[in-house]
């Protein structure tokens, strides 16, 4: 495919992805790392929070909460230390963008963390990386070591009087620890059971102290915002919808990925405005030879599927919600016409049944039950009434639990059951003949 017709890439976060030894401090500094930190330490924390508010930066972990607003919630003058936790538990299936950042530009990630720590008044940073990312863990630890030796982490950073420590805390294989309060429990050395909110982490987080938790990609944007200003960031991407006062747009740049049944899976960075179709067909290379695209989940595994004719929605927070799905992590999973949607739904339901933490009954029981019914259909033992049974389950699971894992289990499965009903019915037994016939 000719590259000239493609939506243009904008490499901000990904500018060092292909640079040799870009993960080392020497190369990173040559490329401008820690200049933003120097500038930020001369600003006041309040100025920084304002700048990030102006930028309209929204959380890149999936929920899209405005970052500056989150920072402003941090409880002050509590007499307790404040913590910054970097959520690098990228356990959402189909998502690998944060791994690229941590492996290829760990100093950008660390710089973003240090600026944020200064802005919120934190003196300790915990970077919670999933255990399945041994290289990310090694690269981040090495980056911290190098930065510590260069006076960028630890006591009196760059002579500013600001002191901050940074540590990696490894996870150990639990999807639920990507949920922010589950993650906090995990740092405290417990099972990753999400907490009831409120109190929100900004008031009472890890070790019962005020805590801000942000995604890797979110904080990697902060150095650019410090150097170029919040307004410049807000000008990029999709502006907020003026007709909707609650809209925050999708500003700045965004890492987007494609995986599954496409020719060239990968991750790229754009100013939002690219459509899902341009992403999947243009950058993802389109379907494998001789195949057609059947369904796409736009972000991770936890969003509803979109059909081929629904792919013209832009990759933005509000735009994909309008299209009946969600941006999620902006890493799309593509299924082609060789994919059996009944089997795909079993695969998805199994994931959530396995990863449910077991705390809330609707999720613990519901996800397993959902998987069993789908399995029964896949085995050819289903009845048409099973589809009604599933609909009933969706209602009793969604929105009835402490965290959003249960919702995330329902959304993709429900959309598959509804959009591919014929495939489910075709797998079922013919109705039993009435007695005496």
């Amino acid at each position, binding site marked *: 495919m000719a590259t000239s017709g493609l939506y243009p890439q904008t490499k901000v976060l990904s500018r060092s992805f292909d640079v040799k030894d870009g993960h080392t401090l020497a190369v990173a500094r040559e490329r401008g790392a820690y200049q933003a930190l120097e500038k930020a330490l001369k600003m006041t924390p309040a100025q920084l929070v304002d700048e990030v508010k102006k930028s309209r930066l929204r959380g890149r972990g999936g929920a899209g909460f405005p970052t500056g607003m989150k920072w402003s919630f941090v409880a002050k003058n509590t007499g307790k*230390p404040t913590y910054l936790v970097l959520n690098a538990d*990228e*356990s*959402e*299936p*189909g*998502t*690998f963008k944060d*791994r690229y950042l941590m492996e290829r530009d760990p100093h950008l990630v660390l710089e973003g963390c240090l600026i944020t720590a200064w802005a919120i008044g934190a003196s300790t940073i915990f970077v919670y990386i*999933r*255990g*399945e*990312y*041994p*290289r990310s863990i090694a690269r981040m630890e090495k980056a911290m070591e190098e930065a510590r030796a260069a006076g960028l982490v630890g006591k009196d950073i760059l002579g500013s009087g600001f002191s901050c*420590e940074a*540590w990696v*805390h*490894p*996870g*150990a*294989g*639990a*999807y639920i620890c990507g949920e922010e309060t589950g993650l906090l429990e*995990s*740092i*405290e*050395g*417990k*099972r*990753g059971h999400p907490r009831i909110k409120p109190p929100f982490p900004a008031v009472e987080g890890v*070790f019962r102290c005020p805590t801000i938790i942000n995604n890797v990609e979110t904080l990697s944007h902060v150095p650019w915002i410090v150097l170029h200003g919040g307004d410049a960031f807000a000008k990029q991407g999709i502006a907020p919808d003026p007709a909707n006062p609650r809209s925050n747009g999708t500003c700045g740049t965004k890492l987007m*990925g*494609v*995986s*599954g*049944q496409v020719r060239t*899976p*990968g*991750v790229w960075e754009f100013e939002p405005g690219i459509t899902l179709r341009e992403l999947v067909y243009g950058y993802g290379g389109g379907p494998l030879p001789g195949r057609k695209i059947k369904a796409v*989940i736009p972000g991770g*595994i936890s969003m509803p599927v979109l059909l081929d004719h629904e792919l013209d929605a832009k990759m933005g927070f509000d735009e994909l919600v309008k299209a009946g799905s969600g941006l999620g992590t902006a*890493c799309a*999973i*593509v*299924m082609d016409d060789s*994919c059996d949607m009944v089997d*795909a739904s079993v*695969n*998805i339901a*199994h*994931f959530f049944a*396995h*990863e449910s*933490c077991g705390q809330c009954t609707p999720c613990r029981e519901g996800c397993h039950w959902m998987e069993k019914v789908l399995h029964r259909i896949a085995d050819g033992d289903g009845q048409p009434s099973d589809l009604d049974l599933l609909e009933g389950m969706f209602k009793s699971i969604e929105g009835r639990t402490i965290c959003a894992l249960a919702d995330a289990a329902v959304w993709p499965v429900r959309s598959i059951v509804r959009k591919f009903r014929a495939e489910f019915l075709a797998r079922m037994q013919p109705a039993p003949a009435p007695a005496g016939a």
Partner: protein
Amino acid sequence: MTPPTGDERAVTRRDQNQAPARGTRGAGPEGAPPGARKGPAAPAAAAAPTDDVTKVAPPAPGATVRKSAPAAPKPPVPAAFPPPELRAECEALVARYPERQAALIPVLHLAQRRLGGWISPELEAGIAAWLGVPDQHVRGVLTFYTMFNTKPVGRHHVQVCRTLSCWLRGSKDLLGAIERKTGLRPGQTDAERKFTVTEVECLGLCEVAPALFVNDDAHVNLTPAAVEKLLDGCK
């Protein structure tokens, strides 16, 4: 002394359940639950079996029937932890956190990697004692996180991703190749403890699917033939 009947005991229990919480309206000093819990109920329950022994009456509906308890498993002898070669690293991990318990997951990782590939009951008890947390807490954490092995694993722990992106690119075929080569299905370890095969959820290697880990090393863009070759290379 009249032995209490089952009915009386039931009343006692109901009263406990209905007693309003401390501090709520209607809870006088006498009606507070703490006294009710330890007061009459305990000696009554203790007295009941001795007096009823000769009657062999059927238990009252809802009463708990006591069977002789199965022999409790022997608690493991805690291993000496940390061993001298890990002491400095373990102390450094604990020093990062304001609470010792917070070092549990990093310490378990370290112990598993350096002390035989799995967390034995003895090691588990040793870590619990050293961190000053209950054994049960460590057990809870061990069983919650899938990366901790509570059984011995082979020298080569093959972890195959089964989640959507890898599944779409043929992770099932990889498992087939592994079974042909080693005779092992997910969850199994061979007798020589050369291989353990595990099916795992998303490894975050979706753009280079299908993928698997052998111990800490990622292998990506695999085909069944490539997996067979990979396993041949494992000594």
